[in-house]
């Protein structure tokens, strides 16, 4: 499997990464190198094999429905580039 330059631009757009035009060919080469390395796995026949989620049989941990967290608005916005009245302030989103 290999990808073309249009796919590189699309993946960058989905990840909100700005790419200079000169970087596209370089990244295409890097991604294709990774894909061909991983492609070795295609040689294994996994027909009918369930994806393994853990080595040991484990049960998803549950918690009770109780309020045990929150009330820390100043800490939540502490790292924000900008905030106002404990709200995150971001560049205006236009619909």
């Amino acid at each position, binding site marked *: 499997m290999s990808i073309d330059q249009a796919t590189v631009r699309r993946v960058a757009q989905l990840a909100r990464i700005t790419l200079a035009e000169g970087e596209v060919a370089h990244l295409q080469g890097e991604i294709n190198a990774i894909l061909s390395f991983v492609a070795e796995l295609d040689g294994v026949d996994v027909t009918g094999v369930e994806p393994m989620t853990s080595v040991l049989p484990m049960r998803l941990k549950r918690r009770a429905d109780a309020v045990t967290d929150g009330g820390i608005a100043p800490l939540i916005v502490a790292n924000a580039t900008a905030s106002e009245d404990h709200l995150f*302030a971001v560049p205006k989103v236009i619909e």
Partner: protein
Amino acid sequence: MATASDSKLIKGATGDWEIVVGMEIHAQVASRSKLFSGASTGFGAEPNSQVSFVDAAMPGMLPVINEFCVAQAVRTGLGLKAQINHRSVFDRKNYFYPDLPQGYQISQFKHPIVGEGEVLVDVTPERQIRVGIERLHLEQDAGKSTHDQSPNQSFVDLNRSGVALMEIVSRPDIRSADEAKAYVGKLRTILRYLGTCDGDMEKGSLRADVNVSVRRPGEPLGTRCEIKNVNSIRFIGQAVDTEARRQIGILEDGGVIQQETRLFDPGRGETRSMRSKEEAHDYRYFPDPDLLPLEFDQAYVDALAADLPELPDAKKARFVADYGLSPYDATVLVAERDLAAFYERAVAVGEGRDPKLVANWVTGDIAAYANAVGLPVHATEITPEQVAGLVDLIVDGTISGKIAKDVLALMVGEERGAAPRDIVERHGLRQVTDTGAIEAAVDAIMAANPDKVAQVQAKPTMLGWFVGQAMKATGGKANPQAVNAVLKGKLGI
């Protein structure tokens, strides 16, 4: 004459069109804390005061599932007569938006917790349709952005971020705006009976994404548009009609429908395109590596099933069978669980009460009063015991239905909380059935109005005037049947 199915078609300039609607309902689970964190779900709190580091997607924080939310999804699935999946998987749905701090929503894609089910929808008390349920899955809500507070900034509150939602996806089995409204209404009733969602649309606990397409009758499905986040049952109906007419207009002008996401603007009565989201439709779902699959056994499902309340369809059937109610009255009474409980209590206090008469009063004068004061019936000062007492007084002939209305007015006025029988005694409202007293009143009226007595012989409809006078003379307390009988005898008609 148009048949039921014909009447659902929309007339276009070039012939009839059929509307096809499918819906995705987002119902907030009535939990105290969020799906994967211990922060509160309470409504209307200070900005970001109900946010944990998990909800804010701080690095290294791990989600731990709320077992109550799992139980409510299973209970809702049972209420929708749906298949419960003993193994389901949480996936990441990736997209960028400022109110989604993780950069992905934890949802269920390939393996939802609930599979196919069905809802019986009363479009009118006489006409029911079946709407197939495709699936129900658990997912996180996003935060809330406000765009109108500043010219160049948007503000983000993450209090909703991570709140548990059940997304309930219907099959495209809905054929009109009325059916769409009835479907959401019925789903809301079922959720409220189960207590799995409070169904409060004003607070956003229940939101609908409405998929609308149109086609010529009998043809394959047309291209659909999705109208996002419609937040009232009335607007759902308007959005379906508006969008269907827009699509018919395009098709009849020889155009093509573009599949897209649109917003309904109730103020302008139109839908408009949300262009910004078009590019973002590649969600790159994959299983969330932070969460193991959600697994439980049949014993867990059975225990939840054993504890399910009686649901509206079963209750309605029982009201019709046991109390002899009309399907209409039964439908009205079971629409809210509290109203149904109020009614049953009023029927059950004491014995030998007429259930139909109780239903008439609860859905009639008492519902009208509750409506006037803006409260549900069970939350007014009127108790089921008072309704029972009132109906008993009518049945045993102590008061007439008309006087009962006066007693009701006293019950919600100066005699708040009093037993109807005491009110009748204190205010001297007991009905006069004593024929002697009625005869005396009638004799006096006839003596005072010889001209009318002559007229009524020629024109028997004049009798109404005499009945009115007799009721007036007895202060409205005379038994109307007795008055009629006495008058007819004395006037010889």
